[in-house]
């Protein structure tokens, strides 16, 4: 199959697949991630485009630059709704804001799928959700950390994203993972704004205020990359740095030994799965529900292994592994 079997959504959260009414001969599909500022969504988009090219569908991407610009994203969805698109694949940092417009899209007979999420109960019924379990991913990396560093006291610093669903879930998964383990103690948790610069500043700050940290977990790879420079500057090569995403640059940083490990969520493959499901929904062969895409924890060796399969990555690694 092209994607794992979907799990049904919560009661009332599933929009009827047979109400989808494609208008175009060649399907016209809008890919609307929350922001262009993350490589991650570009990688998802490349996965989508690859399948579109293969299957002969037309895809365009429309997104604000900044993930904080929810208002901008809503404006774009509004503009797209006045066009004759057959499907929208979207991701958002604020599902409640998107709900009224998404409802409108569904009512217009547009197929609507959400990516990079695991919400089984989007505020208004939609046709499908494609993504990994945010909580399970970071739970796994917490387990991995306990296995690798447990047995003696471990002080943990956390760099959160901008407050919102993704940050809450990922940090929550990590906290769930270490809960009950008496060795692990979270001593500081501050936001890093999802980007490298913010991660660097946050990393600098928490290492200054808590020189005794053993582990830093950040809610995405960019922030942990930023923090890695801070650790290096302060001569802290002993510290474990954990991220989440598995985008190419994150994996390369792990391969280079700058970052310790990440949750690899294979955005490119996620995009491919999402596109397959969307096309199926337009054909009426998609049953609806949530498609969980796989995740894995990759340390240095794992990252190198992933980088050796560049056809599953976007962007391509900067060198051959």
């Amino acid at each position, binding site marked *: 199959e092209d994607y794992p079997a979907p799990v049904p959504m919560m009661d009332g959260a599933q929009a009827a697949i047979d109400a989808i009414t494609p208008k175009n001969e060649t399907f016209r599909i809008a890919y609307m991630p929350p922001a262009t500022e993350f490589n991650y969504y570009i990688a998802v988009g490349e996965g989508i485009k690859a399948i579109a090219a293969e299957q002969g569908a037309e895809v365009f991407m*429309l997104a604000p630059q900044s993930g904080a610009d929810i208002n901008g994203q*809503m*404006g774009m969805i509004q503009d*797209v709704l006045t066009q004759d698109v057959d499907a929208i694949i979207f991701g958002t940092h604020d599902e409640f804001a998107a*709900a*009224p417009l998404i409802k409108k899209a569904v009512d217009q007979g547009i197929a609507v799928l959400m990516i990079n999420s695991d919400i089984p109960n989007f505020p208004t019924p939609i046709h499908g959700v494609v993504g990994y379990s945010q909580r399970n991913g970071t739970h796994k990396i917490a387990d991995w950390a306990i296995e690798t560093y447990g047995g003696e006291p471990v002080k943990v610093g956390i760099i959160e994203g901008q407050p919102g669903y993704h940050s*809450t879930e990922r940090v929550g998964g990590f906290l769930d993972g270490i809960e009950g383990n008496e060795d692990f103690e979270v001593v500081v948790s501050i936001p890093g704004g999802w980007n490298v610069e913010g991660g660097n500043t946050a990393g600098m700050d928490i290492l200054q205020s808590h020189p005794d940290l053993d582990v830093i977990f950040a809610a995405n790879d960019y922030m942990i990359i930023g923090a890695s420079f801070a650790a290096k500057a302060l001569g802290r090569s002993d510290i474990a740095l954990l991220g989440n995403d598995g985008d190419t640059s994150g994996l390369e940083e792990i391969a280079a030994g700058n970052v310790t490990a990440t949750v690899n969520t294979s955005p490119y493959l996620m995009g491919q799965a999402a596109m397959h499901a969307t096309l199926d929904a337009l054909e009426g062969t998609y049953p609806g529900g949530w498609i969980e895409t796989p995740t894995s924890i990759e340390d240095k060796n794992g990252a190198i292994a992933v980088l050796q399969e560049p056809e599953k990555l976007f962007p391509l690694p900067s060198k051959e592994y």
Partner: protein
Amino acid sequence: MKRIFDAQLIGPFAAMVIVTLIVAMTTDRFLNPGNLSNLFLQVSIVALIAIGATVVIFAAGIDLSSGSMVALLTMILAQMLKFMGLPLIFALPLILVVGALLGLGLGLITAYGRIPSFITTLAALIAFRGLALTFNNGSPIFSLDPGLEPIFYGKLAGIPLPFFYLLTFYGLAAFTMNFTKLGREIYAVGGNPAAAVLTGINVRKVQAITFAIAGFMTAVGAVLMSARLNSGSPNYGQTLELQAIAAAVVGGASLAGGRGNILATFMGAMTIVIVQNGLNLNAAPSSVQNIVLGLIILLAVGIDMWRAELSSLLSSVFGKSASVKGG
């Protein structure tokens, strides 16, 4: 009415029309009724906040705080609706008052503290976002009140409600600027504050009032933002202040103060939104959107500055006498 619809509207109006024609040529999806009524939704928040930004500019001030203030106000509104259980009917007027008071505060510091408004509102731009983060641990507050969304998405006689807000507030603003004492005092203060003092105009009070108006209009914008997104967030409204100023400036308001037509600001906002709409309809990436917006601002002001040169160029090209009376 001659005063309201004066010559200063011609340029911005022409710009809007030209942009509309260009966009309409690039895509046939532009001129469908759904998209046109959509434009009012798109422009509403910026255009309403731009009223305040423009009034401040008329009085030779600048307001950099509105974007952050939107964030703060959506958080306060969310707090009131969700955690304090205030009914919408009380919360809405209250948030407008809070907005006006915040603006007034900035105005008082600027006017009576003799601090340039660029500084006061720059400080507020930073501090208001900090304040917004103190609510709900800095996390957005979602799904506030079922009555909120219709304020933005509702329709009356098939016309989106924001159209009526625009009509009301721009009507009020145009009347105020052209037919009231306050309006003329604002222009006088912007045109020559020293002269205004000597004429007995309470310059500081007028300055403070312009910021109160800006705060109020920002609150109106914040309500619409909350309604549109059914949530409050400390991240909302980033760079909104710049968009509002851009609308004023594309509409021809002079940053030196004392000059401009408030209705032109609406046209400035529309011009920007039509371009964005056109770019969205053509699925232009955000890089292109930014570059085009930057160029529009530059061009709009440039054309305004070089009006004399351009018109003499045009007239010489079209063979008219070169010795037309200069202005």
